[in-house]
């Protein structure tokens, strides 16, 4: 259930031409895409033309739906939702805007087309997904799993370290000192947890406390 965010913007250099802007996003059923398509402009008249109903995006959809599907102007955000698994999808939107001298030189409007495409339900092509008996995904290739590693308890009298082989400050190791009224601060290092006695402010320790520690270590 991931929401992907995609913004596509046409360049001002492409204003005179019928340009196409493309993006690719593979997606799983249950995921959605938050899509914003913006036509860059140079002049006031060009910018104002994008607010008119004549500049509403005209959608061509394959294996997906969009919401809202009507009344969408440049710069507004829509939600793209895939329909069928194991198939390609595309969401194409064409916006018409004013231009004083378009190429080819017909009239005073030009178009920009935004094409978002990809495949549904086949990403990634590796990894593990585990379902429960009801078909709900219990663990997926993009899910981190919170796991218990160990618990360390004791009492310190000075700053010290405890050895925890493998631990590192890499964002995957979690610690929490949950000893009651503990004054012990702890920090994740490489293969160690550093334990420090706390230092209070100018008023000193007003609150009692002790130098016991009970540190749970977990992985995420």
């Amino acid at each position: 259930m991931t929401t992907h965010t995609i913004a596509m913007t046409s360049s001002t250099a492409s204003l005179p031409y019928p340009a196409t802007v493309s993006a690719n996003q593979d997606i799983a059923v249950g995921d959605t895409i938050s899509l914003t398509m913006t036509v860059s402009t140079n002049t006031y008249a060009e910018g104002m033309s994008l607010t008119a109903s004549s500049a509403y995006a005209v959608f061509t959809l394959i294996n997906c739906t969009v919401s809202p599907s009507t009344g969408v102007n440049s710069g507004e955000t829509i939600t793209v939702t895939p329909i069928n698994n194991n198939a390609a999808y595309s969401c194409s939107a064409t916006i018409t805007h004013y231009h004083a001298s378009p190429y080819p030189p017909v009239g005073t409007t030009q178009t920009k087309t935004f094409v978002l495409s990809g495949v549904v339900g086949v990403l990634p092509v590796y990894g593990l997904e585990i379902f429960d008996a009801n078909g709900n995904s219990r663990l997926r290739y993009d899910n981190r799993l919170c796991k218990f590693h160990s618990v360390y308890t004791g009492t310190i009298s000075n700053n010290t370290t405890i050895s925890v082989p493998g631990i590192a400050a890499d964002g995957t190791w979690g610690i929490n000192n949950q000893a009651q009224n503990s004054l012990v601060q702890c920090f994740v290092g490489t293969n160690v947890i550093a334990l420090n006695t706390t230092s209070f402010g100018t008023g000193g320790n007003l609150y009692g406390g002790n130098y016991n520690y009970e540190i749970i270590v977990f992985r995420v």
Partner: protein
Amino acid sequence: MGYGFLSNTDNGYAQIDGENLQLKVLASGSVVPGVIGISSSDKDGVGNSLYPNSGRISNWHPSKAATSISIPTGYSSSDVFLFARPSSSTQSTKMIGCIFSSSTFRITCPEWVNWGSNTVDYKLCVINNDEDENTNYGLRVFNAAGDLGFSSNRTNFKGEQFAYGTPSRNMTTTSSSDYGSTVIGPMYFDKPNEKLDYYCLLNGCAAYSGWQIVTGGSPQQSFIYNAGTRGMFWYQPYVQFVYGSNPSVKMFSDYSKSQAYGSYFGNQVDLASTRGIVIGIFV
């Protein structure tokens, strides 16, 4: 690892490694957060009185006592992982903390935060080898000691992010927000559209709290309170859920409150021990 089973996420984080152990949801429910110290017999896990029980500000919510919930038999406060989330988005200030005794826990909030009838959902997790469902199918992975590293027959906690720190607070501010406190986080949800599904580990809220006597004399030793002559502020780290376009969770120290007279000492409330929070979704 020299043997066994290893699976990684698509961006390289270890999921199942045959070494670390999966959390098991042992109890769950919903409860309205409340305050502590309503009774003079209300004490923390090492016997200290939790709070003066008189002279509280009447327009706050001091009479809403936090509900005491039993830790299942066979486990104690040092064995459990307490996760919680707001049950809905209705509550405006979504601040919660917790406190343990040897056999119970309570989900708390500052006195100035009124949860009304709004509740939080909690899940109490432990480490054991029990499973939730039919074991005739699915995947189980054990570590070398025979303990359960993963079972598809369990509700699974999909951890997303972790942060830790020491939520000190500068006493010179009276702001009832994270201003003045060292903030752990905020951790922004990877899936903002599923913000109501996110739980946060609360254990770190319980370990230590700070007291501050204000005005009228020199700093007092802990837990001494003279009603009518001194004010007292009680500090604890709380977790705050913020639901908006960019939902997140953070931890910081804030005051609950009893009486207050005059100004603060310019003292640092160093809530001493290190706290860690992790967010994720149970599936």
